[in-house]
């Protein structure tokens, strides 16, 4: 009787499995951010609570690109609190281990937590709070350090560089330490397969410029299940024509932006996880119990009396346990992230300027469908930061300066 708990728990847990939300990526890529935001808002209101952080991140990202800064900040922060909490109930842990892994609350992989922190940092910068922006960067750096493979625990050059810029904005003297970490992280990432160039003007002159352009290219990686029992979580890149960007101000070329963050690389260097070992064990159990169940059922047809009945019961139970054991990897991921983040800095006169951003394909050719124009205000003191994504132009109000 006691053994009947195992399939029972599996049934209950499998029943609570949560799927990746069907975010309308075609609309996102087409620049219809209002539709994606509405989808995400509906999911926040009536979708599975376990996916709240995921869909809030998507909603906030749309709001940020639409210029709705306060809404974006609030949603990123709620998502960040869920993603950053290490607390897990025993029931949730048991459900994810015995049943489907995707029954657990989505908290994202370290690279997703780092991206959440990056967006929160931008929101606080535009709110005029560089210290909170820097706090978000620090949290992102800590999240990046949670990867299983220790070699890749501090390779997010973008967050280190941003923390340095915000320290500079706060008027504190320790910005150089962050800039040095950024250069080290960039060199390390390049050595281990990240995209980018060893010659990086932004990291070579990290304090340069009163205009900072943060340019996001492409679509981030897709997480999928691999292996005979779908027990392996893997990442694959999504195709998008935009792989780089350049900008001009009032008709004058500012040059090509430098790649500071390769999101695909960050995802792929996650390293082995403890859950992967558990899923592999469940996959072995699933295969073994299914095979044993079939063998016993087959033998029961050739036996007779009590032996046949015992074999049929045991075989049926094993087959059922095998079929109900879910070894599938949790493949929920933040699907609207960019593939790369580039930065371009320039020293420009204060005042109003016409900014033009051209996203580039792999051959360096301009992609006119993504060309964006914006009127920006560069303050007499401080800096102007502008965020753009390789999407068809979205109309939005200009942002306040930090």
């Amino acid at each position: 009787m006691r053994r009947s708990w195992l399939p029972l728990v599996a049934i209950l847990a499998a029943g609570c499995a949560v799927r990746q939300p069907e975010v309308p990526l075609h609309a996102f890529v087409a620049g219809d951010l209002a539709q994606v935001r509405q989808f995400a808002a509906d999911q926040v209101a009536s979708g599975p609570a376990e996916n709240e952080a995921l869909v809030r991140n998507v909603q906030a990202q749309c709001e940020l690109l639409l210029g709705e800064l306060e809404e974006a900040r609030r949603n990123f922060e709620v998502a960040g609190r869920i993603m950053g909490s290490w607390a897990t109930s025993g029931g949730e842990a048991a459900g994810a281990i015995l049943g489907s892994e995707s029954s657990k609350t989505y908290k994202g992989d370290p690279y997703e937590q780092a991206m959440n922190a990056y967006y929160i940092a931008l929101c606080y910068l535009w709110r005029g709070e560089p210290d909170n922006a820097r706090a978000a960067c620090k949290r992102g750096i800590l999240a990046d350090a949670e990867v299983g493979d220790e070699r890749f625990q501090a390779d997010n050059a973008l967050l280190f560089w941003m923390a340095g810029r915000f320290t500079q904005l706060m008027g504190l003297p320790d910005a150089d330490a962050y800039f040095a970490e950024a250069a080290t992280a960039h060199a390390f990432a390049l050595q281990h397969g990240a995209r980018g160039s060893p010659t990086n003007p932004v990291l070579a002159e990290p304090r340069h410029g009163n205009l900072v352009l943060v340019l996001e290219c492409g679509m981030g990686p897709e997480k999928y299940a691999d292996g005979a029992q779908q027990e392996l979580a893997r990442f694959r890149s999504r195709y998008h024509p935009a792989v780089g960007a350049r900008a001009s101000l009032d008709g004058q070329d500012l040059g090509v932006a430098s790649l500071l963050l390769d999101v695909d690389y960050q995802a792929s260097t996650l390293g082995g996880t403890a859950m992967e070992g558990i899923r592999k064990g469940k996959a072995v159990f699933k295969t073994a119990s299914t095979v044993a169940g079939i063998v016993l059922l087959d033998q029961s047809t050739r036996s007779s009396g009590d032996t046949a009945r015992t074999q049929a019961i045991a075989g049926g139970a094993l087959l059922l346990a095998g079929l109900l054991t879910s070894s599938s990897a949790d493949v929920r991921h933040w699907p609207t992230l960019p593939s790369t983040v580039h930065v371009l800095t320039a020293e420009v006169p204060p005042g109003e300027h016409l900014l033009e951003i051209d996203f580039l394909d792999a051959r360096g050719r301009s992609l006119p469908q993504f060309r964006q124009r914006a009127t920006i205000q560069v303050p007499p003191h401080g800096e102007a930061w502008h965020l753009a994504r390789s999407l068809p132009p979205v109309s939005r109000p200009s942002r306040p300066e930090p």
Partner: protein
Amino acid sequence: MTIRFAATTLVCFLAACAGTRDTRVDPDAPDTITGTGLQSQDIRSMVTGMAAKLKADGILNPGRDGERASFFITELRNDSSDVIDRQLILRDLRTELFDAFGRQIRILDRSPEASDLVDAERRMKERGQVSGTNDRKVAGSDFVLKGVIASRDRQAGKLKSSYINVTFELTDLVSQELVWTGRYEMKTESEKSVINR
């Protein structure tokens, strides 16, 4: 046996689909939602503790001639790794100081919004658009109170610790002397579940 099994199944099903709660709790009570960073209990303990320490120190007590000391709260710089609503803490601290000192001190509002309102009101009075006269100067300050939130975070494998230190300082705005300082500390330790590793 069958009834027991069915009952157990039903109990498990109901447990798995248990409802949520929506309960009013004491802001001074520890958070059931744990995690690193300052929680409501910390903010409450911090502001009441700071106000009590400042009062006990006596630096803000009225002088022999009964003149009240004046001060304003300027900034709370966040050097930690946790984004925080500074205004929430500063407003609470200001309220707590009012509660602790009553009319014994003068707390000035030096926010840009207050300055704009004062300027506009003074202009309207000068023009005779509203009643009243500008018969007093904008109050000067004897002291300024400011603070810093700092943190030290360590993590190794499945464990993480976060130490937060909040320091407030009161500076004499004539002599530039640091006349009082107080701190609040808290530390949390977290263990990551195997399902999130």
